[in-house]
């Protein structure tokens, strides 16, 4: 898969402060999460990709286009939902989204049609003629999402899309992001400090700290790898059980009190664990996939960085 974003020694400075420091790497996932504590440089990276900030050293490419030379092209391919409250208070949602569509290059009629469509799509269909100034915070977030996708971009950059949303509104936003990802027509770059949001929507994650990339992980691969790592708790003598599992290719280690940790080999059917336990009349009290959550990955990355 060709990379969506390539970072080639990208550094950005504001005055004497280095905000992004020699970022290198590439991401190609359908939905990429950009994680990091406050001040890590997530928003600056997004702004640099959009050409709002000038690189001090190095460069980056979006769909192979250099951010220095092809700024206009990149902006034509991207849709951006900023973190700040960005709207024009006295405009109706449909006028606002239509104008943004037209500025992205849509003809007048097409922009109007698509403005209605995306407002229905994000769930603002009934409120689309109301001025944006009268919208609740959740509705404004949805309007921002609508303006970001009205022109059908290839890359949608979402900066803290669930900021300030109540749980139902957050769920709706996450569902929309997942739907957009699954539609397969665009790539998503989701910047958030909420690990759950990224975990629920992204398949690749880039973790930043103090302007540096501290970890880059493919969540899909991590999830697949985690599925092979199983913890079992039994009651009774499990020595023969562990041997039987080892004979079938599992790497087992007993941690006492009837607890077994094992890595399952490829092609191993999980039902065999129950079968082997039944043969030995062994009671299985618990079986769990010991998976590294995104929180574990994030904390590990933060620890490594310090």
């Amino acid at each position, binding site marked *: 898969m060709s990379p969506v974003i390539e970072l080639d020694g990208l550094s950005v400075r504001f005055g004497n402060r280095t905000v992004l420091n020699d970022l290198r790497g590439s991401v190609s996932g359908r939905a990429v999460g950009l994680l990091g504590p406050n001040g890590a440089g997530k928003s600056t990276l997004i702004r640099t990709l959009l050409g*709002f900030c000038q690189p001090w050293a190095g460069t980056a490419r979006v769909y192979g286009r250099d951010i220095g030379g092809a700024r206009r092209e990149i*902006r034509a391919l991207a849709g951006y939902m900023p973190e*700040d409250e*960005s709207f024009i208070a006295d405009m109706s949602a449909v006028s606002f989204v239509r104008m943004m569509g*037209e*500025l992205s*290059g*849509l003809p007048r009629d097409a922009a109007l049609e698509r403005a209605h469509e995306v407002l229905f799509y994000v769930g603002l269909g009934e409120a689309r003629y109301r001025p944006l100034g009268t919208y609740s915070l959740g509705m404004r977030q949805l309007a921002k999402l609508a303006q970001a996708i009205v022109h*059908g971009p290839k890359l949608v950059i979402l900066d803290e899309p669930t900021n300030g949303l109540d749980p139902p509104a957050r769920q709706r936003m996450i569902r929309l992001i997942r739907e957009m990802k699954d539609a397969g027509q665009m790539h998503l770059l989701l910047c958030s400090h909420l690990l759950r949001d990224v975990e629920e929507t992204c398949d690749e994650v880039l973790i930043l700290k103090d302007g540096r990339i501290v970890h880059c992980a493919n969540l899909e691969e991590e999830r697949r790898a985690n599925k092979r790592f199983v913890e079992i708790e039994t009651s009774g003598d499990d020595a023969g059980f562990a041997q039987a599992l080892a004979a079938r290719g599992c790497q087992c280690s007993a941690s006492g009190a009837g607890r077994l940790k094992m890595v399952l080999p490829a092609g191993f059917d999980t039902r065999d664990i129950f079968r082997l336990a039944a043969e030995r009349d062994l009671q299985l009290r618990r079986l769990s996939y010991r998976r590294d959550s995104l929180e574990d990955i994030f904390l590990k990355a933060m620890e490594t960085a310090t």
Partner: protein
Amino acid sequence: MAVYKRTYQGYSGAATPAWSRFLILPRYSLGRLFPSKFLVLFLMACFFYPAGCAVFIYLSHHLSFLRVFNIQAANFLEINANFFYIYCTVQATMASLLTALVGPGLVSPDVANHALALYFCRPFSRFEYAAGKMSVLIGLLSLVTWIPGLILFLIQASLAGRSWMAANWWIAQAIVVGSLIWIVVLSLIALAMSAWVKWRIAAGALILGVIFAGAGFGRALNAVLRIRGGTMLDLEQDSFTLWSALFRLPGAGRDLDPLEAANAIAAACLVCLWLLFKKIRPFEVVK
């Protein structure tokens, strides 16, 4: 995509040419301005003086009509460069007031609502944004300055005959050039003030302050420092000096040299442009 199919669909149609996109902004800006009844009434008031001038020109060419009312034709003002200069000064004041009404609503809502990032994350530059917003003012101010001025000139030319037009075509040139200079000055001041002051009323007051308060400040400077250059701070006076030269009036350059006036206007425009591009950014960097 039908609305009942609530799935995301990309756009694969044709795109508009990039050069034409700055014209989108005036369309939406005017749409947001005209619901104001006060603005519509004021705009109508701006046409009273040109309408009066048109009637005056008509009457000055129909002496038989004047005789019915026992009015001496000699008492009538001659339709010459001075007549059009007076027209320009009156309409310039109306244009200043119109700018103070319209200008603050152009950039300040975008700055106050952090909407600039939404414009500039698209294939749309800061220059196009400024040009788009400026074209709102250029259009409206043209409507009350040089367009009616040119119509008056054509009325006079049609009534006075070809010989008058051949001898005075430069007056039309002076009307257009003089008005355009003033329009550009007003537009840049309005955009710069609107970008820096988020509160509309304050921005409007500041626009008028920059245009009119310069006169008082300039005179005070002249009196205190015993210089003549303080007058250059009076943008209205600078423009009137330039117009006097354009309309070939005898008193041109008495208070201020036309070149000095042109320099002062150019400097004011450059300062406004600097202020504008300092503020029109997708986000503010705190260094």
